[in-house]
């Protein structure tokens, strides 16, 4: 799927055969989607991107990524709702979730983790640090 596109342009990842880590980016900010997509592809990940929570959730069920990087404040479904709905389903419930948000208050971070996020990154952010956090999350999951 092309970054920024709201439709999946790639077939569903065959997890049985896959050796490449797949990451789904859900963010309504086109700059962040595009930049992250380039950065994560450069690292060697399979990257999918969606611009709102509803499309992101649908893509998560279809693609079954290893990691979802999700913004909090988005149209249709918030990042927290995406987290909660992913965690509520057995088939995608174990996906790694990183919340990427401008909400930096202590209470916000607590809410993010309570909703099911594995990690919390505050905007403005460093793409390099986000990649490190994805690697750390994957290492913990192994």
């Amino acid at each position: 799927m092309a970054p920024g596109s709201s439709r999946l342009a790639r077939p569903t990842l065959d997890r049985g055969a896959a050796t490449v880590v797949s990451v789904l980016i859900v963010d309504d900010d086109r700059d962040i989607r595009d930049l992250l997509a380039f950065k994560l592809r450069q690292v060697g990940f399979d990257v999918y991107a969606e611009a709102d929570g509803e499309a992101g959730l649908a893509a998560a069920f279809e693609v079954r990524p290893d990691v979802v990087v999700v913004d909090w404040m988005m149209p249709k479904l918030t990042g927290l709702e995406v987290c909660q709905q992913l965690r509520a389903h057995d088939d995608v419930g174990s996906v790694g979730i990183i919340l990427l948000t401008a909400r930096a208050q202590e209470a916000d971070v607590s809410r993010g983790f309570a909703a099911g996020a594995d990690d919390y990154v505050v905007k403005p952010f460093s793409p390099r640090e986000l990649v490190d956090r994805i690697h750390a999350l994957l290492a913990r999951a192994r």
Partner: protein
Amino acid sequence: VGFETVVPAVLLVLTGVLLLIGAATWTRKIAVGWAERRRARLEAALRPQLFELLAEGRPGDRPTAEGRSSRRVLESIMVGLLPKLRGAGRAQLVTWMESDGAVARARRRTRSRRPVVRAQAAQHLGDLAVASALPDLVALLDDRHDDVRTAAARGLGKLGHADTVPVLLARLDGPRRLPAGVVALALVHAGPVGTEGLREGLRHRASAARLVACELLGRFGDLAATPTLARRALDDASLDVRVAAARALGRIGSPAAGGALVACAGSGQPAALRAAAAWSLGQLGDPTAVSPLRGALHDRDHAVAHAAATALASLGPEGLAVLFDVAEGLGGPAEHAREAIEARRLDGARRRGDRFGRAA
């Protein structure tokens, strides 16, 4: 000249004017559409190049844009990205923009005749956060337009430079002053780098500056500010500053603030100060505060009694024992005590993830 000649002539002229207006509108619409399409084409070509270079992060590489329009579009994409990034990617963008003259252009635009251009320039300089922009942004704080001064204050905050703190606090006093919220937010952006300036600000002649300094030192948890904040809480001329200082002492949480806070919670003090001091004594977690808080629990002022009950609930077994004791009785203090016990029980249950949690 007869009536029958004048009317058709006027109609003809009016028709001509209308046609001209229509043609001008149509031409403008075409031109705007063409410019937008051209900009979209340029963006589509430049964005992948820029993002790829940022992703790869090779220091020697830089995006190339041929022609003035391309360079302007590239700059606007980079300006849009700046506030979203930190770290190496952000530094890379700033380097490219500085070498392309974007900083120099933004500095020149701070002297534009149009206020909107000056405000945009202040915003860009703040996003770029280059130290060389400091004098330009400080100069804009004297601008005759409120919006430009506000943009300059925000820009100064984003520079994250200690020198901006006294400059911003000074704008809470005198002519062309800024709203306290604007200054406070700018100082929050500047971050703990400005705590020394904020400690100086506790002695500022303007109460608004002292108030903002108190709030931010509390937010930053600046331990070194405890003695000065304690003095402000005890004897500042402004009640608002005393209350803010008392709350800041609670946020910082130094045991050294206990004596001043107990004095502020005393019965001879204004109710707002007593309430703030009671809350802060709870934040300190010092069991020696139980006795004065027990007195404050019986305060006639609802806010003071409520704050004392909440504080006692956070002081461990000694504080809870007082609450359980008072909760047995009747009247306001018993009600506050029961509320605090219940809040504590619910908080404990929430933390354990047990919605039917046991009594605290």
